[in-house]
């Protein structure tokens, strides 16, 4: 560790894509960081880079969210020597091309572990601390959860369930006692979309990360990023069933 930051942000899924972009932006803003991802090699590289470039404190925790029974406890234990926790950003997520009712039970369990169990377990474990600091929980939904389809079946179910978690957190806490933010993400230019033919341009993770980082501690809300996806979501929801059934992909 190299410097003293006033607050800590925890980023789960910090080794690539949006999570890595969030780590870079928050380090630039002076946060101490606890980075969580599955591979210690990636975490060590990112931590070293951020400490050198931004002179901030970066701790790491290698966790396999598909198999870790209590990721929240592991994260909580890693925060002991860190500055007060101010933000939890749950950027980890996994989807599969064969998530179309053809998955075996073990794969369904992995998808639910990473996309639903881990966010719940981590939120539950860190909630008391975040209440004390009036911190921010950032959840990431997906446009895949707008309406259930024959693809991304388990993934979309998990993302829809996160919407319920968002509502529960807001319902249980007075405004200002806890900031709860849900970003329903459109296409991002990450490894998950690289090489795919997308119906519209993907957003750059760096730009999305800047948007999110600038709004930490600034209230509770659920919104689409990019904003134009709100209109697309409204249209998809409004489609009559016979038309929606004919949608491909």
């Amino acid at each position, binding site marked *: 560790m190299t410097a003293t930051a006033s607050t800590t942000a925890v980023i789960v899924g910090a080794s690539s894509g949006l999570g890595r972009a969030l780590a870079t932006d928050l380090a630039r803003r002076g946060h101490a960081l606890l980075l969580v991802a599955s591979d210690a090699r990636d975490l060590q*590289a990112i931590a*070293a*880079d951020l400490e050198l470039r931004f002179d901030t404190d970066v701790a790491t925790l290698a966790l396999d969210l598909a198999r870790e029974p209590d990721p929240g406890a592991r994260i909580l234990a890693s925060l002991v020597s860190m500055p007060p926790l101010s933000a939890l950003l749950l950027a980890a997520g996994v*989807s599969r091309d064969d998530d179309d009712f053809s998955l075996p039970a073990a794969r369904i369990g992995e998808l639910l572990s990473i996309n639903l169990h881990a966010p719940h377990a981590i939120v539950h474990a860190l909630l008391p601390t975040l209440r004390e600091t009036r911190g921010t929980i950032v959840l990431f939904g997906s446009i895949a959860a707008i309406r259930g389809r024959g693809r991304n079946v388990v993934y979309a179910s998990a993302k829809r369930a996160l919407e319920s978690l968002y509502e529960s957190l807001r319902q249980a806490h007075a405004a200002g006692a806890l900031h709860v933010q849900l970003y329903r993400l459109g296409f991002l230019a990450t490894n998950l979309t690289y*090489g795919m033919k997308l119906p519209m341009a993907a957003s750059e993770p760096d730009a999305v990360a800047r948007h999110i980082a600038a709004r930490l501690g600034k209230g509770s809300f659920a919104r689409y990023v990019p904003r134009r996806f709100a209109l697309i979501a409204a249209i998809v929801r409004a489609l009559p069933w016979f038309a929606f059934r004919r949608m491909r992909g």
Partner: protein
Amino acid sequence: MAPAESRGFALARERLTSFDRQFAADVRVQRPDRYRLLDALPADQPRIARGGGVSYVAASFGNDATTLDMRAFDRLLAFDDRAGVLCVEAGASIGDVQRFLLPHGWYVPVAPGHPRASIGGCVASDVHGKNPARDGTFRALVEELQLHVPGRGLLGVDARNDAALFDATIGGFGMTGTITHATLRLVRPPRAIALRRVPVDDLAQAARVLRESANAHVLYGWHDGRPDRFGRGVIRVGLSDDEAASRDVALSKNTDLPAAIAPLPVPLWNRNGIAVANSWLSRRWCKPGFEPIALAQALFPLNDARLYFAGYGKAGLVELQWLVPHPRFEAFAVALGDCVARERPRIALISSKLFDGVARGFALDGKGIALALHLPSPTQSSQRAFCERVAELAIEHGGRPNPIKDSTLDEAVMRRAFADFDATRDALAAHNRDGRFGSELTRRIGL
């Protein structure tokens, strides 16, 4: 790899074009952003690493290879501020590294002209900088490397630990494995650069000025390539300006030359365009005197050359670069001048540099003067014939080519230019036994 397994492994098909626009191909590209993705491809899949993608030639892709786009591996891993040692991942750009180092009072003295060149590319090409006679080539800076080799994982190599692999990797065109990180020895930068301009009438005079100025931080010549003015130009001698008020650290990312430059629809470098540009440059540069220049400008002169490269149009350019030993250089320069007078090729520019190293492998190094010639429309028969004639002359005078710059080189020329071609090739092949690593460049020059 089945589609379901490849999700997130970042596989796609892309059309890649070499910087000189002489080769393009639709290739498979994998874009690993985590260490485990380096193992995602089947072990026997032919591959080649790609950093900034700014090599003049097609060094980072080929028809039969999957390109590993290493740009996500761009992190600084360790920095010893006292000793001046930096460990950095191979996908980091040299411009980004200099931006980090200069405010800390260090820099990488051997830097290619394009700021987006990657550290891995600098190693694999054993690039030279603004004065190779003073600073050597990139090899001089490399203390340790880490490579990924399918089936063997990540290997740390240095001059004591697997020295043969370490040696072959530097200047090995990516054929020994995928470079994942490098540990570099750094140098204190000059506070500022005072650029002395020394006009010269011909290449022989240029060689004398270069030899007399061997210890300058920046040392290179610009020369007119037109038959009636052949070799006239200026030697730019960048001296340390210790009287400068403060160290120049202005090296903005915004000024970095793009990796791909859109060609102008109408090429500029016809005979009239070359005449106008050279006349303007002669008036502007070829006057004796001093001028202060920003260190950033000295490090990355190509940042000011966007229009220059765009001006080659869709046909692109070719850079011929040959290092000719001192005893033969003056004769080579005369013969080259005669050839230009006879064949009247279009040469957009000629640059000269002094080398004082040891020739190793296929990298450009040795003791002599290197000339680089930029030619537009290299596929035109007259231009092509001139390129072949230059190669003949250079080989006759003991010259060594620069494979990482020159897309006209083939195996036959390489064999004639490198007396130890087979031994050098075999040394590389010993680390690439199943031929998994290779590019269009390595295929073309017979490696």
